[in-house]
């Protein structure tokens, strides 16, 4: 059960992270697993892509220079966009967690993360009910 199902779905994933290292690694990782990946380095760019591409899921970094993940999330929800969001954070900040939960997110993943788990939660959302093979 490697969860490696090339080309089975062409769901759209938007990765929002201001660290190019993480953005590019995650992009390649999910591309190889048959996902149509878009990336944004900050909130502004992410708004544009979200509006144009209507991703199925957004992987959102909490700590970003231009606009924090929570700020981005709040603005997006205010505009009536209810795309599913998983937040990735390096810090275990109770306040941020509470606020983000109030804004309707699927969950939090803490860095350093277990890559297999990230794969599992993301693919589960994108593929719907994950068929066990």
């Amino acid at each position, binding site marked *: 059960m490697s969860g490696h199902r090339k080309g089975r779905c062409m769901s759209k994933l938007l990765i929002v992270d201001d660290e190019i*290292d993480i953005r590019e690694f995650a992009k390649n990782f999910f591309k190889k697993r048959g996902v149509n990946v878009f990336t944004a380095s900050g909130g502004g760019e992410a708004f544009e892509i979200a509006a144009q591409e209507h991703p199925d899921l957004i992987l959102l970094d909490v700590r970003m220079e231009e606009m924090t993940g929570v700020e981005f999330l709040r603005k997006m929800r205010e505009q009536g966009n209810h795309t599913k969001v998983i937040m990735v954070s390096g810090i275990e900040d109770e306040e941020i967690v509470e606020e983000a939960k109030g804004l309707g997110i699927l969950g939090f993943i803490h860095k*350093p*993360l277990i*890559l*297999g788990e990230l*794969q599992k939660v993301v693919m589960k959302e994108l593929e719907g009910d994950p068929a066990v093979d």
Partner: protein
Amino acid sequence: MALSKAVPKIDYKKALEAASRGMIMIHDPAVLIKLILRIIVGRVHIAHAGMILHDPDRDRYVLNVSKGKIGARVPAGFARFDKNSPIIQVFLNKKIEPILRGKKAILAHDVHATIWKEGLLNGGVCDPEISLLLHDVRDEMELYDVSACVPAVYHRELMAVLLLGDKVEGGHFDQEELDFFSALASNAAMAIRNAQLFEKLKDHAEKKHDLFIRMTNTLGAAIEAKDEYTKGHSEGVTRYSVAIARYMADYMGYAFEEKFYEDLYIAGILHDIGKIGVPEMILNKPGRLTPEEYALIKRHPVDGVAILKDLPELEESIKGIRHHHERMDGSGYPDGLKGDEIPVIASIIAVADAFDAMTTQRPYRQPTSAEDAVAEIMRCVETQFHGDASRAIKGLLDSGLLA
């Protein structure tokens, strides 16, 4: 073979020696690991490489350092491996080492063949525990796009695992390459262990002698403030002393107890405490000292003892402080002790002191290279310096571990 013409063969022995030279004097394991990964990625042309390091506080492994192209390398600090993750489990499993048969690594392309061979050797069936574990390892390696995992072990403890991507020029790793990676990984493991040990001792000493240590650190800072060229000298001497003692215990059959390392730590920090009584003018004098001035400097071991003598728990450390300028042939000071009469704690500090002094800039000269400093120590072995302590610092230098 047409392929081998395009790829110039690397002399791994030379590369390892060059790498070891580069590792000298690196105190911070993270810096050392960066250097190792740069060597691997740069010289062997690997798409990406990373090292997952044991975090003893949380007993898990974190990928802390990585090299390679953006997008291929796993971002530093991004991924962790818990103790039950296959890549960690496999190297903690006692049954694995004989199965790897000296390969010193797990290779993704080789997993099937390994399981099959094990089956043949065991009358048809490979141990299901091993077979399952190896398959899980291969799946986990695939997640990270890793084609080889090399363990970094020190005294049966898994300190780190080196994760290697594919060779840019294609083809699998050969045994010579794996030996090279394994040697680099062992160096890293030892450096990590030494750094951890040093931190632990520091922590322990600070807790145990809280007020005392704070007081002596203040005294130590006072000496260093007087003598600008010895800034960091006490800590340097302490680090080298602990590393030398550790090496003597690991490779020369010395049985030092934990207490010895603590005494050594304190003696290292305080070995020059007696210099507090020497005027600044003399300590920082750029030219030659007059015999009177030299006589004043030579008092510092005895003055140091006088400062500390009312602290009975420092008995062993005090021996180290009093005798760190004795010489094996009896021509040292203050007591002119010979050979075995000199406490080993003092002999270790003497070598560490000489090495740190030579490799640091002084008012009257440029620093000596680590190689030349060790050569000089070896030139004076048995006349000035303790044989095993000197050979230990040479051993540390040769394995690139003066950290």
